[in-house]
């Protein structure tokens, strides 16, 4: 049994100590999956790191007790603590791509870990490792164990990580976002595995995640954290089905539902001050002036993209890798087309082809009534370079950190020759900031002074200042917390309605696409599996692949949870 009482962790700095978590209480019984949920900065991972003694320097435990059974974890010497790690408490990290040593075989890493904690011969350790891999669902384990990490797919690699975590029979496993980097199908397998291990081996899991769907699906108990403090704790059905704390309620409202469409998200609290409408009026008029005439649709016909594959032999031509295979789709003028698919399905390649960053190997693209040349055949001054704009996934890397917001926002205005005078550009940029819900004084600041959500608003403003008729949003909210995601999605909906924009909305999140898109296309291995009206597809999916995607997405079924209370 893991007991955490009044735990506080501080990070000293030049500006005084920063309290990362304060007065956290938690008890995890053997065999229990305890969900720890909250948004970024809530201190979830710090709790896990404190328990296993891996707090990033200079963080330290300021007060509280940490007990595993009768053992006081805080009283251990560094050597004892290190011997305890792996043996009694183990950990699973988020990204299976980076959590295994790339230069060592799976076998070496498993045997080394087993021998670190028990005095067994190498052959006995190997046997145990093979048995474990079999148990965890890796076929032909005695052969596969000799492979290096890069020879496994993402889901298999996460299984190997889990095997490494349990190979020494620990009592507690801290799983820090164990499925966030995985596709839904693989996620559901890994979650089932965790559930089975908790039940069969009586391992206590601390499941740290931001995904309430995952918690609802497998956690027995849940603790909701915010800004380093526990907001609410209890049985999963109790906390999620009948939340007592307003924060829990707000958090759950922000989660986009998969099973029905809602008009707007209820936003917990608006980020930034309420902005006067009058300020944004200028930008609104300017945009409307530019969008006279019918909206612009996009038509892709038999579009294919091939990349050169790895060369396997000197004489044979390398097999091409087909990223997009005969894709035909239409984005109706003034509508939103949602494009869903797992990683590697070709979603982002499609965005790159439309923007002219990748040359298609076949097929045609039509924007409005003009044919779009592909790749380098599209001249730098082609009108589509202005008409098509993008909002990227990661607002941290898509804004130049050395430029002020003024420069970032003015650039499209002078680049496309819309506004000649610097002062007028600035006025328009300020007004545009107001339109996307940012205070006008943001213009003097640098990107790092803003949160992820605010940055994404700036990225949207930048895209709009090019007076686009067609917007490509490539996973615009997957780097953001749910409450921020709700705000950005609301903003995009408002802008789309106001200016009749046509949007290609790319996401791996089926629930988000249902809320946003008029039409939906399901992409798999570069092929369109299914395309149609969003509500039709979600209500009655035709393709087996769509069905399984929908079935495997973890959802928070409130009615079901309430029934369990």
């Amino acid at each position, binding site marked *: 049994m893991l007991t955490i009482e009044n735990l506080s962790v501080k990070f000293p700095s030049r500006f005084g100590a920063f309290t990362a978590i304060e007065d956290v209480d938690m008890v995890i019984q053997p065999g229990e999956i305890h969900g720890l949920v909250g948004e970024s900065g809530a201190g979830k991972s710090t709790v896990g790191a404190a328990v296993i003694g891996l707090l990033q320097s200079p963080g330290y435990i300021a007060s509280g007790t940490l007990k595993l059974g009768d053992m006081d974890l805080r009283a251990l010497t560094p050597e004892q603590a290190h*011997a305890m790690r792996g043996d009694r408490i*183990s950990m699973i990290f988020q990204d299976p791509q980076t*959590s295994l040593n790339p*230069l060592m075989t799976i076998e070496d890493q498993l045997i080394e870990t087993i021998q670190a904690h028990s005095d067994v011969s190498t052959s006995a350790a190997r046997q145990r490792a093979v048995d474990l891999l079999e148990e965890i669902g890796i076929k032909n384990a005695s052969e596969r164990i000799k*492979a290096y990490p*890069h*020879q496994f797919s993402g889901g298999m690699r996460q299984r190997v990580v889990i095997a490494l*975590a349990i190979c020494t029979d620990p009592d507690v496993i801290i799983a820090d976002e164990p499925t966030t980097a995985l596709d839904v199908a693989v996620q559901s397998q890994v979650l089932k595995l965790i559930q089975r291990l908790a039940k069969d081996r009586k391992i206590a899991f601390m499941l740290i995640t931001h995904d309430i769907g995952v918690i609802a699906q497998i956690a027995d108990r849940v603790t909701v954290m915010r800004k380093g403090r526990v907001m609410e704790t209890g049985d999963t059905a109790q906390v999620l089905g009948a939340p007592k704390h307003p924060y829990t309620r707000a958090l759950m409202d922000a989660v986009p539902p998969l099973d029905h469409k809602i008009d707007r998200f209820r936003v917990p609290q608006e980020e930034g001050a309420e902005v006067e409408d009058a300020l944004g009026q200028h930008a609104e008029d300017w945009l409307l002036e530019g969008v006279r005439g019918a909206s612009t649709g996009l038509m892709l016909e038999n579009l294919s993209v091939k990349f050169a594959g790895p060369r396997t032999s000197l004489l044979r031509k390398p097999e091409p890798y087909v990223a997009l295979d005969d894709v035909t789709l239409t984005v109706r003028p003034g509508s939103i087309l949602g494009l869903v698919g797992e990683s590697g399905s070709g979603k982002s390649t499609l965005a790159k082809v439309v923007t002219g960053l990748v040359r298609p190997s076949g097929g045609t693209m039509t924007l409005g009534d003009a044919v779009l040349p592909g790749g380098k055949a599209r001249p730098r001054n082609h009108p589509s370079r202005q008409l098509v704009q993008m909002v990227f996934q990661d607002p941290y890397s898509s804004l130049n950190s050395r430029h002020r917001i003024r420069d970032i926002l003015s650039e499209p205005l002078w680049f496309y020759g819309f506004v000649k005078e610097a002062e007028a550009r600035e006025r328009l940029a300020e007004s545009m900031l107001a339109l996307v819900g940012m205070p006008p004084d943001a213009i003097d600041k640098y990107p790092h002074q803003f949160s992820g959500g605010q940055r994404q608003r700036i990225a949207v403003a930048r895209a709009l200042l090019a007076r686009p008729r067609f917007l490509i949003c490539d996973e615009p909210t997957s780097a953001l917390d749910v409450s921020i995601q709700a705000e950005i999605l609301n903003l995009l909906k408002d802008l789309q309605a106001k200016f009749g924009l046509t949007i290609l909305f790319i996401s791996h999140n089926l629930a988000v696409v249902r809320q946003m898109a008029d039409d939906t296309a399901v992409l798999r291995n570069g092929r369109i599996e299914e395309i149609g009206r969003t509500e039709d597809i979600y209500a009655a999916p035709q393709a087996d692949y769509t069905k399984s995607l929908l079935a495997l997405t973890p959802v928070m079924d409130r009615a079901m949870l309430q029934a369990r209370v």
Partner: protein
Amino acid sequence: MVYFILKRLVQSVFVMLAVAFLAFSLFRFVGDPISQMTGVETSVEDQERLREELGLNDPFILQFARFTSDMVQGDFGFSYRTRQPVAEMIADRIPATLELGVVALLISLIVGIPTGVYTALRPRGIATQAILMTTLVGVSIPTFVIGIMLIFIFGVQLGWLPTFGRGGTVQIGGWESSLFTVEGWRALLLPAITLGVYQLTLTMRLVRAEMMEVMRTDYIRFAIARGVPMNKLHYRHALSNTMVPVITIIGLQFGGVIAFSIVTESVFQWPGMGLLFLESIRFVDIPVMGVYLVVIAFFFVLVNLIVDLLYVAIDPRLRVRDVQ
């Protein structure tokens, strides 16, 4: 894998051709070879005859082709100064430079890697700060100053070590080695340290930076989280991952050590290729300069090829294909 090596080999051939072209241009266009070879008393008709005999009136491409094919066959021509074949002169000097370079490299690795690891694992220790300060001084002082300082302290003041020449050498086959006598080693020590100091500081700082980076990665944190013993963690997990990028730089630097041993060789009167090159410049001995250029380029290409092979040996991601 085979394809990868073949590709590198083909690339190397092109690099060597480019360098040969430079060497040839130097040879052909810097001064007039005929007036270099003949005295003032040779008549203009004789000069013209010689020019015709030596093929200097042939088209440029033909001359370059002849030059390259001679080079490939080991015929490097004759020195203007000593009238000896250049191949012999270079072959005489290569052992001295190579031994100096290799010993300097070994010193830099044997000292540089462990101190790099130490300073990475104790980033805030007093010893670490002291080492970092010292090495900063080491990088900022030019090589020849270090050489002269070493000569002054160990050669002149203390009188422990010789200050010039190779000491005792032993002939093994065609290779004149100073590695088998005490005198030879005594003579080798100061120049090798001088030459290796910069490489040493670079290796150390590089190992330190890479290792600190590696220690922050997820797989190291995961290894700590599952209680892998600390010495295995540091040397088996962290150090091997550190070495992947470090090897490239060390390899490139080794080429540099061989090429820029000129300064050290002239300070210590070390009879290597660098000294030969300096003498050749003084006497405008263009054939020797051209060949030196080609030989050094060959070393660079060779070392790079070895680095590529080491990469393949260390990193399974280059060696073993994905199986899904």
